[in-house]
């Protein structure tokens, strides 16, 4: 923790950055904090409750954050994959940000804790993450940590869904999506939903009905999953933010599996590796064009 605080103090003190986006203890557990003065660096903490993906604050749709000036952002390995996405897609220049990498042994499901990592508490996404150190980071702090306990509820849920007939899967998603109220929390917390004007907000023509009926909800969530295919870092913030409790990350993971199977591409934290979206390759499988 001191390593993190000392680094933040130094970056703020020598004017390298105007603010450090990190984690602090809030009224309801760990939450994002913007530290702008070196003397406030001791607010920063990092423990398994540091669930949030802070890369979302680098999303260009946040003029009030951008106004602060150059940022340093505390990133876990999974968050760095989202930063790589912004870099890959020219939404961020590498010299615009300092990435403070923290060695991570997994996070829990809720920033409210408990901070203890075990098979019950660990976030589902950590079960498939083999990366303890964010290699994209400018600095890496924190002690070496063991791999998180494996809990694969999201994978299990997907396997269960895979095993069901099509009609049952349809019913499952209809029941889930029926509850969506279209608050757009999923989109707003997403580091990679950076369109200045979302397809959902376009009304002439109205591509996607904005009404929270199941028809509009289905159109919206499938479109979002497709737009994130091969881009989503599966940070799971959409699922966590959803006030209706819809497991949206399952859609993104399914799309990720399809992209892996079809294009041999897995989202990583090297912005130099081109993603299938935005890449033309003559040897892409295209047997669906007849």
């Amino acid at each position, binding site marked *: 923790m001191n390593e993190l605080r000392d680094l933040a103090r130094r970056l703020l003190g020598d004017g390298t950055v105007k603010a450090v986006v990190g984690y602090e203890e*809030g*009224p*309801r*557990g*760990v*939450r*994002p*904090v*913007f530290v702008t003065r070196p003397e406030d660096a001791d607010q920063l903490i990092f423990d398994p409750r540091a669930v*949030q993906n802070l890369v*979302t*604050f680098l999303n260009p*749709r*946040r*003029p*009030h*954050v951008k*106004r*602060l000036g150059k940022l340093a952002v505390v990133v876990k390995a999974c968050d760095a994959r989202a930063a790589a996405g912004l870099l890959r897609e020219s939404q961020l220049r590498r010299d615009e940000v300092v990435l403070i990498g923290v060695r991570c042994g997994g996070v829990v499901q809720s*920033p409210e804790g408990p901070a203890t990592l075990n098979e019950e508490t660990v976030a589902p996404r950590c079960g498939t993450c083999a990366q303890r150190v964010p290699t994209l980071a400018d600095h890496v702090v924190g002690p070496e940590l063991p791999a998180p306990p494996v809990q694969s509820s999201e994978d299990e849920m997907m396997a269960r869904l895979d095993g069901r007939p099509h009609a049952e899967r349809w019913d499952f998603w209809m029941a889930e999506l029926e*509850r969506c*109220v*279209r*608050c*757009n*929390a999923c*989109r*707003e*917390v997403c580091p990679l939903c950076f369109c200045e004007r979302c397809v959902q*907000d376009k*009304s002439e023509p*109205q591509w996607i*009905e*904005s*009404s*929270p*009926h199941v028809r*509009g909800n289905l159109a919206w969530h499938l479109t979002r999953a497709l737009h994130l295919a091969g881009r989503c870092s599966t940070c799971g*913030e959409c699922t*966590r*933010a*959803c*006030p*209706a*409790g*819809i497991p949206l990350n399952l859609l993104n993971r399914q799309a990720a599996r399809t992209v892996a199977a079809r294009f041999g591409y897995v989202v990583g934290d090297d912005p130099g590796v081109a993603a299938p979206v935005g890449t033309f390759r003559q040897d892409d499988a295209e047997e669906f064009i007849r």
Partner: protein
Amino acid sequence: MSTTAPITKANLANLVARLVAGGARVVAPVRKTDGLRYREVTDGAEIVLEPRGLPDMSLKAVVFPPTEPLTSYERKGRDVALTAPPLIFQPTVVLGSRPCDAAGLEILDRVMNWDLRDELWFGRRRATTIVSLACAGPADRSCFCTAVGLAPDATRGSDALLVPVNGGFVLEAVTDAGEALVKGNHDLFGVPAQADAEVRQQARQAVAANLSLDPPAVQAWLSAHFEDPLWDPIALRCHGCGACASVCPTCHCFDVVDEPEDLAHGTRRRNWDTCQAAKFTLHASGHNPRADQNVRFRQRVMHKFEIYPERFGQVLCTGCGRCSRTCPGGQDLPEILAAIQARVGGAA
């Protein structure tokens, strides 16, 4: 109104069966994989009456659905025929509303009957009987109903109040509708009894320990500080996602959209909306008077604690704390209100 009648849990289930058989929609808290939710129930055994269990979303959808048709249209040659939905609403009984949620509906009656009387709102309000369940204390640190003039056993907006006692509940009728519910089902109730006043007082004090506010003083401060350094960094951690508005019992802004079904038919609907979205105030010209999230978040605080009280003499907040619980960015309304209260001096 002073009818108090004890009812056992078994008879509460019998009451549900009777109401459903009579054609009523019964809505109550149930626990599903997605948490504690207000849902339509047909079996009283499903109902979860936890003295501190706060459903994740408020009760407002019962009266104000997330989406509803305002009119359907049909093009006939050069004319357009409009058909409004019939103002017929299924009788609904809510069992186990939280007192803050019932109060939220009553608070909204003012704006819904302001420049235009919203018949969809009042039609459902009239068709709905609300039996609230008194809270045994705060659900957690984010409850602050006592700071905005309510209480864990507040009866505002409720037709009757269930107060837990040993082996069941005491049902206190508040309105004629609540009285009718007790009288019409008298065989399910025991002899009149009183709930323990001291327990209720303790519950109030426990909530009051979370936050103390002087709403008129907060209103006065807000009125004089539309521009203030407080607002500049207020929403850095806010994603502008609007989850707070979705779960809020008093956020009521809506969008109106036309959805064509084919070339000749379509529906005009109203859908929940939120001032936290950039699009909410985006002008056709491209100009946005609330250009960033700090300003949009100030609007949320202003509307609840300055604008609504100024217009209707009532804070637009019930202190349920859901916005704090749901916020993926850790924005905390009680914390912000305490900061404002500290600027005025006095409580907090």
